[in-house]
């Protein structure tokens, strides 16, 4: 360990872990955005709203189940499902009629949706800050790297990230619906011409993507104050990550989230007052050299 510390100081190591736990949230949300962008070709600005709704639902569910560990686990399962139902209604009720429209139109429509969702959240949950407690079992710190304390909950996030990535890899590459979605991303007309009801495939993909937004919202809830407007920052970051990684490429979203999250956490070490500019600078640098993103875009 001492050799490791000589190369990378413990302070930096610990900050890398902080960055990676941020990456987890960013990856989960942006992979959903990228999935929808790649298969359905919808630049869904309302994706951030679904993340926010996920966080608010997590608050309500956690209160409903007594605020303890049970509340957290129920929120972790229930809130993404709640978001999935909201998105299914939106898709069947509206989006399914608009897939052939041009992107600018879809951009405006989903932007309008984000405003509507924002107001709905205000009506249902009010304007005060909400906080979701960190579950008992993840409270406290562990001492890592020469005794620097690291929050247990962040460690939990570091475990969830890879699980979601593997699950997503499995769905996309090994299941029939994933294979159909990959085919439809490139040629939806031909997928219809081999007997597949593309409309329902799109609905399922849309719901999976939105479910990921909801999951991101639940996971972030104990680490931030749940508030109106939390969707705006995130949707901007998520879009930058997706663009940086390659539009529609889920692994690009993973790579983009890694760069964004690490630039954020390490930037604070380098220049703490202006730490926030580092991830954006990283985006600019990446796009200067790879204007279409790091990995192959499906667009």
């Amino acid at each position, binding site marked *: 360990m001492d050799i490791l510390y000589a190369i990378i100081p413990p302070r930096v190591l610990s900050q890398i872990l902080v960055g990676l736990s941020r990456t987890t949230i960013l990856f989960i949300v942006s992979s959903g955005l990228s999935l929808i962008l790649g298969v359905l070709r919808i630049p869904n600005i309302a994706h951030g709203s679904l993340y926010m709704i996920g966080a608010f639902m997590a608050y309500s569910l956690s209160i409903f189940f007594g605020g303890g560990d049970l509340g957290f686990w129920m929120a972790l399962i229930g809130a993404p499902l709640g978001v999935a139902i909201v998105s299914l209604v939106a898709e069947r009720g509206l989006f399914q009629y608009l897939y052939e429209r041009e992107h600018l139109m879809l951009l405006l429509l989903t932007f309008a949706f984000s405003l509507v969702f924002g107001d709905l959240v205000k009506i249902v949950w009010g304007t005060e800050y909400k906080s979701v407690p960190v579950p008992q079992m993840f409270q406290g710190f562990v001492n890592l790297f020469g005794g620097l304390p690291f929050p247990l909950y962040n460690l939990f996030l570091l475990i969830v990230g890879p699980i979601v990535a593997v699950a997503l890899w499995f769905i996309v590459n090994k299941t029939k619906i994933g*294979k159909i979605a*990959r*085919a439809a991303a490139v040629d939806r007309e031909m997928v219809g*011409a081999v*007997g597949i009801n593309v409309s329902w495939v799109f609905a399922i993909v849309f719901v999976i993507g939105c479910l990921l937004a909801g999951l991101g919202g639940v996971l972030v809830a104990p680490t931030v104050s749940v508030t109106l407007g939390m969707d705006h920052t995130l949707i901007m970051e998520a879009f930058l990550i997706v663009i940086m990684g390659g539009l529609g490429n889920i692994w690009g979203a993973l790579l983009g989230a890694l760069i964004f999250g690490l630039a954020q956490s390490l930037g604070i070490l380098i220049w703490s007052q202006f730490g926030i500019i580092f991830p954006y600078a990283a985006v600019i640098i990446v796009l200067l050299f790879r204007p279409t993103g790091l990995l192959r875009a499906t667009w």
Partner: protein
Amino acid sequence: MLDVKGIHTYYGLSHILFDVSLTVSKGEVVGLLGRNGAGKSTTMRSIMGLTPPKEGSISFNGDNITGQKPYLLFRKGIGYVPDDRRVFADLSVDDNLEIVHNRKTDWNKERVYELFPALSEIKTRRAGNLSGGEQQMLTIARALMGSPELLLLDEPTEGLAPLIVRDLEEQILKLKDAGISILLSEQNVRSALKMISRAYVIDNGSIRFAGTVSELEANDEVKKKYLMV
């Protein structure tokens, strides 16, 4: 089995097909011959519901299928092989076959691979990396996975080397022997004549000739004017 009656098809505002009528009976291989841009592909797309006609009607096995969604037509037993191949480039050969909707089990992967042994050797390859001939086999194999009663083959030999064309002709004749009706569109008249029993000649979106192969062969005017042979 297939009865197309007086269809008019448009791309946006431009009128492409004018009063096209044709029939395909059970077990028959019918040619739709014509030059590039004559309206062959549009006729195929109209039948498959990809570019539905604005006027006229199409019936299949006695059901009126005009304006029905392509995926429903596939499930009724119409297989479509587009002229520009359009394999699912991102998927493996095997997955290209696997995702197809199985309406019956007449055809399955084993039987398809038996017909196209070359494909079974490259099951795991990414479809986008295949040669033109392999992609063409794959699109036919893919359509067969739905156990079609009618196959719409849009210029299957286009752009392929003569040796591969000969293989493909043999395989198409095997499909005929298996009892599948085929509507085959071709520019390559010489190749088509080996497979078909009747032909329609299309030009500028209208049917100019309909008859048996021997009638077509005897008709020098049609051959010279529309087929350039």
